[in-house]
């Protein structure tokens, strides 16, 4: 039921945060960011879920009385959030490509010119 | 409006800057002892400053060794007008025991006009105080002349040979400071 979704999403967020905080390789940090994004997307989608509801589309002939829809608004929000996740990943990948070229390494402990 | 007071105040608050041109520190100790409670030059307004910019009376001690000529001249240049130069002890005047040595670059006379010369190998503090007081008076006259020439130091007429001989011989140890800055009417 819906509690599993919520628990899974918070677990995904925690896992993503752990991955971002501990992993040294930049790509893995990016994956951690992705995990956080998926966790939040899952949370936003499952907020609108209502057991027994069907997809909110008025398709001819398939709708019989007593049927009800699932909440369409969180699905729209998730759409936006997914595209945001994609764009963030694209941007960070671009940065990682150039950092690998410039610093010659992907290890985050070596990329620390700005400190102190 | 304040000019007369300023001239008078020149005498009342002469600030001293001490240049050690290679001296054996005998005169330096004496000069500093002048500021101690026993001789207390401060009651006449004397005050030892750290930079030539704030100095009125430049006290030079030591036989102007070769190393210190350059620095002496530069520091003397950096002292604002009206100023007096006081040579402390007999080293700056004649080189004292070091006269004729390869290492010293001659009496202070060669580099600047000495207003008051306090003689003696380590002159007594009283002598120094008397010399400084005399320099303070010279300061006041210089300031008055300076005002006459539009704020510039009175430019010397070509030094007449007369003045050259007229300089008295050097005094002995005690307070026989000799005024050397003869009054000269500038013809600017």
């Amino acid at each position, binding site marked *: 039921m819906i509690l599993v979704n919520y628990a899974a999403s918070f677990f995904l967020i925690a896992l993503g945060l752990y991955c971002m905080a501990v992993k040294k390789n930049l790509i893995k940090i990016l994956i951690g960011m992705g995990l956080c994004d998926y966790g939040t997307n899952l949370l936003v989608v499952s907020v609108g879920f209502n057991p027994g509801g069907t997809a909110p589309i008025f398709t001819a002939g398939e709708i019989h009385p007593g049927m009800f829809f699932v909440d369409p608004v969180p699905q729209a929000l998730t759409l936006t959030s997914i595209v945001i996740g994609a764009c963030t990943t694209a941007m960070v990948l671009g940065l990682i490509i150039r950092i690998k070229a410039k610093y010659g390494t992907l290890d985050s402990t070596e990329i620390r010119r*700005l400190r102190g | 409006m304040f000019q007369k007071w300023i001239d008078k105040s020149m005498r009342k608050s002469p600030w001293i800057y001490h240049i050690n041109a290679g001296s054996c520190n005998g005169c330096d100790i004496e000069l500093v002892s002048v500021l101690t409670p026993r001789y207390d030059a401060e009651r006449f307004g004397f005050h030892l400053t750290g930079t030539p910019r704030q100095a009125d009376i430049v006290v030079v001690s030591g036989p102007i060794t070769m190393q210190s000529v350059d620095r002496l001249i530069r520091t003397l240049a950096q002292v604002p007008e009206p100023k007096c130069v006081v040579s402390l002890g007999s080293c700056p005047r004649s080189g004292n025991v070091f006269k004729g040595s390869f290492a010293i670059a001659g009496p202070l006379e060669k580099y600047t006009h000495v207003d008051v010369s306090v003689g003696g190998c380590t002159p007594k503090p009283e002598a120094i105080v008397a010399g400084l007081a005399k320099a303070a008076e010279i300061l006041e006259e210089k300031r008055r002349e300076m005002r006459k020439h539009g704020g510039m130091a009175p*430019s010397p007429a070509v030094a007449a040979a007369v003045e050259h001989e007229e300089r008295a011989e050097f005094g002995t140890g005690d307070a026989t400071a000799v005024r050397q800055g003869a009054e000269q009417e500038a013809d600017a």
Partner: protein
Amino acid sequence: MNMEHYPILAIISLFLGAFLVALFGRLNKVLRNLIVAAAVTIPLCLMIALIAPVMIGGQVIGYWMGNWAPVGPWAIGIGLEVDALSLFFGLVVTIAVFVSGLYSFTYMNRDDSLENYYTLFLMLSGSLLGLVLTGDLFNIFVMIEIMTMTAVALTAFRVDYEGALEGALKYMVVGSIGSTSVLVGIAMLYSQLHTLNMAQIAAALPDHQNLVTVGAFAFLFLGFSTKAFLFPFHPLAADAHAVAPASISLMISGVITKCGVYGIIRLAYILYQNINEPAVSILITGFGAVSCFICVTMAFNQHDFKRLLAFHSISQVGYVITAVGLGTALGLSAGLYHAMNHTLFKGLLFLCAGAVQYATGSLDLGRLGGLAKKMPKTCALFLIGAASISGLPPFNGFFSKWMIYQASFEKGLDTGNFFYIVVCVVCLLSSVLTLASFVKVAQSVFFGQLQPQFENTKEVPLTMRIPMWILAVLCILTGVLPWEVLQKLVGPAAAAALNAAGYIQGMLGSGAAAGAGAQAAFSMEIGFWGPVSWLCLLLIVSCAVCLVAVLGTAEQKSPEERHEMDRRAGRTAAFTRDGFADAGRILKPAEKEGHYRNPVLSGTTLTFTGEKDPKYENFFSGEESEYSQVGGGDLFWGFKTNWRHYFQGMRRWHSGVINDYTRYGIVALAFVLLYACLFL
């Protein structure tokens, strides 16, 4: 085109400008600059046009996208809500955008692929304006994302500048924690209140308070403080500002942080209306005070000009958050006033840093020095900015800081809670440390001795200085006329923030024309300080002093005139001696040539061969003063030795590794969540 469409037109004009530049930017430079100039000035004019109705008239503009008016209590469409608070921040955004756009025309002309730069810049400004004017919670999240995305891309714009990519990566990665927490907060709120419109949430929240909404408050607060770079996130700001181009640093420090502040004000004052609970007030003020103090001490021993400015901008944002967290009318208006001042003087300082970078190519405090003679106008502008940030009286920093101290002290007096007195002391102390670091910057960049390699630096072109002058004049105006600014701009904004009912009624009530009615009698009692009458007093006294000076002394001539008089009076440029005794003798110089110049006695003067008159050289205890600049690291030795353990800890703490910064972010998230669950 009535006044209702102004907000959306302002936002869309920026975005449309961005796309037009993307399309036609590559064709020719002039067209591109024209588009950017138009796209930057239109929103400024629209916002200024809105001042009359919204600020003074007290009207709240509720503008529903696509005419989707709310059905009963439920707002189905997205609404733009422009009340005095939003317009205040809108003005701050548009001024900063206008000045930064003007500045980047010449500042960036040496870079390549500028159409990308201008597209990103205009989208950044559009998203900032969109964020400030919107009335929908999810729309704020979308605008935050555009803002972060474009700010990161712009930070990394100068790809080959040392550290640019690293700064951008850190900003993006740790910024994503903030974005994630904002979205989680929105999802939790939606699950409880079934709506996304802020006015409706504000109306429904008081009777839906439970664990989920408290959790949502914690998540949203942390999300907005990430965007405002508060305490655990301030290393991001330092890295991002230090490497971004100066016009972008202005935008990041001046405006993006203000949007974080705007979010926190909306959250605590309008949505949850729980600012008066002691727990929330202590949380926000605590965050503000800690970030204020730590960033000032961190800024103390930086040796990069822009990184120092970055840390200062976070400490000033710390001031603003401290004032906002107090919750009283005086506190909020002090915070808003300081937010506006900060954008003005921090923008000016960043543009000065850009000018120094443009002219000399270096930002290293250790190697710059003596630029005042080469770049006098930039130095004058820098002094105005530095005086404003350190809060010297006639400038604008002073009045807002003074209000902050009064507000925090009064809150301490009323609630009897010693915490606010500690906050007041911390703020006063940070003000002195700010002054100290700007004295350090002035000494190591503008005054002191010029390095030989910067011998031929020239003043930056006029087109760069105009935006700086605009900011400088604004700094002085807001400093000298504080009471008008309070009545016209800050007062209504603070009143709008405090009057949540007006916000709700303005949006969900009878639509646009509702108007929040007369402002709540906005009584704000501040000790009387009339800078104008104080300046007249200064004038009188200075006239008296000048009179005495003119009468008293002989006139002072400049060194050149003195040389002139010497030459005319027959004395060569060497130093003059009076009553020189033995004239005419040629001295026998000692043999070693280089050791000391052989003084030649000619006529009445002793001249050095080819030597400049040492009289006007700096006194260097007799030596010839070669290069010996006192600046950069070797200032404030006494303070640093006493606090060396603290500074070493700070250096170790700001390690520069991304993982550490994410770890601090996570710990902060956990702390805020725990705090919210326990105390709210």
